[in-house]
């Protein structure tokens, strides 16, 4: 029991620090640097601490310090409570969605079963959707409570867009559930030990649909209707200043990580290395004794998982800096007239194939 508790706390601390301490600030830097590289620029590199610039990494720190000491602002006539609540509602699910995503397998360490997921829920993926849909409220509330017309338009767009894509996202995932027969992300991950059982091979259409829906759900370019700068100034967070405004961004960045984690778990073999089964991995590290081998295998698996996550982060960033923005009606049309029917067809095909085979 104590061991379980220690294990849980260790995992929570790990995920929490990786997400908030590493991904949130670093993604801000990555976004700047990657866009700079793609655009023949140099990008932020001047902020220094004692002469060290760390290729611009300290700019994230500078941004954090700045926004923290920026004036906090609520317009008159705005609903103060909901205005303050909105970034909170956005950020909390973004931080906590990662609890059900396994970042490693099961290991036998010193006679104790270690399962590298914070909460191995049997509803798994449903929990992700439940929390993700909470974020919609944050956005809508932010738009509605600001008393600014731009915010309101952004909030309305956000509500319609996020709700629509949630439907499509919910349906695209069903193919995966049919194939793996579980809602548990750990189980789905474990079933992808064989390289050719990765979700990307069993559910290619599902993968494309899911990634599209996920990016749309996260309101990133090309789906950034709710904050479309050139149309709505800053969309639903027009009236937010300082840290509250950055909280929306943090939520966005963390959701990038979460999306990457889910995509990796569902479609890209989770923590598994391609062509190397768990047994082979363990036998590879036989020289370190049973515990040492398990530990090393664990490290390799976690590293593999995060490498895949970083790959998908890179992919999302590349998409963001390459494509122009959709128009609002096109986004909705894409969802209801393309993705939704396609995901229904995907269910049909998957069901038929699974039954026939």
């Amino acid at each position, binding site marked *: 029991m104590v061991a379980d508790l220690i294990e849980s706390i260790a995992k929570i601390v790990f995920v929490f620090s990786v997400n908030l301490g590493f991904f949130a600030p670093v993604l801000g830097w990555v976004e*700047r640097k990657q866009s*700079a590289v793609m*655009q*023949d*620029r*140099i*990008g*932020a*590199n*001047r*902020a220094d601490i004692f002469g060290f610039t760390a290729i611009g990494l*300290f*700019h994230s*720190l*500078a*941004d*954090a*310090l*700045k*926004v*923290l*000491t*920026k*004036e*906090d*602002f609520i317009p008159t006539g705005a609903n103060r409570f909901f205005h303050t609540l909105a970034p909170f509602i956005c950020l909390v699910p973004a931080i906590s969605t990662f609890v059900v995503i396994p970042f490693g397998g099961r290991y036998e360490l010193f006679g104790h079963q270690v399962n590298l997921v914070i909460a191995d829920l049997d509803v798994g993926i449903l929990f992700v959707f439940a929390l993700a849909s909470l974020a919609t409220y944050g956005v809508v509330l932010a738009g509605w409570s600001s008393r600014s017309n731009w915010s309101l338009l952004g909030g309305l767009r956000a509500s319609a867009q996020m709700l629509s894509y949630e439907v499509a996202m919910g349906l695209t995932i069903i193919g995966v559930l049919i194939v793996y027969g579980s809602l548990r992300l750990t189980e789905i991950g474990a079933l992808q030990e064989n390289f050719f059982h990765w979700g990307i091979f069993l559910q290619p259409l599902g993968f494309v649909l899911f990634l599209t829906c996920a990016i749309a759900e996260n309101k990133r370019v090309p789906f950034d209707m709710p904050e479309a*700068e050139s149309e709505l*100034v*800053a969309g639903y*967070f*027009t*009236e*937010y*200043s*300082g840290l509250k*405004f950055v909280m929306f961004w943090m939520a966005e960045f963390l959701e990038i990580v979460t999306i990457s984690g889910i995509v990796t778990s569902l479609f890209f073999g989770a923590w598994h290395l391609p062509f190397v089964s768990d047994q082979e991995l363990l036998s590879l590290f036989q020289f370190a004794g049973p515990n040492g081998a398990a530990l090393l295998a664990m490290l390799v698996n976690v590293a593999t998982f995060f490498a895949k996550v970083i790959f998908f982060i890179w992919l999302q960033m590349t998409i963001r800096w390459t494509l122009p923005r959709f128009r609002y009606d096109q986004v909705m049309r894409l969802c209801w007239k393309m993705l939704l029917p396609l995901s229904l067809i995907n269910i049909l095909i998957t069901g038929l194939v699974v039954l026939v085979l």
Partner: protein
Amino acid sequence: MGVTFGKESASRRIVPGGTVSDGPERLLDGSAILTRLQAAVNWGRKYSFFLYPFVTACCGMEFMSVAGPKYDLDRFGAALPRFSPRQADLLMVVGTISHKQAPILVKVYNQMTEPKWVFAFGVCAVSGGFYNNYSVVQGIDTLIPVDVYVPGCPPRPEMVLDGLLKLQEKVAKERWSDWPRGAAPVTPMLKKQE
């Protein structure tokens, strides 16, 4: 280059030359911790300008160049344009301000959240330039306080970068008591009719 500091105004005293002189303010600003903290915050602020591009005229073309790949404003951490004044720190007034535009500028300035700085980009914003006529405001400092003046018609990107570095120097020397800055010192005179 031809970049100058902003005028000293009542609410903000800039100490030129770098060292804070011995005197009452040293006692006021007090302990080493506060000074350290202030230095850290100023460090953060000076490398993280979110711009509000108030772009109206010709200088906008050079502004695009400054943001572009060759000169790359992003190197100094000042590349992120925020079109909401709540999120912006640095009001870049790029181009001529006419009398019709003046209330808009003042309003945007007023709606910015503290701390806020103003960058007069180009000679029209600095002094009205060679448009000394019925419709052009003779320098935005008649409307709002200005931190950095960068003359030139339009200024070359190198000058703009120099101005930004000057502003960073200035921000590094600020004290808590410099904020908040408050509303623009002008009031609407001519009533607008719809």
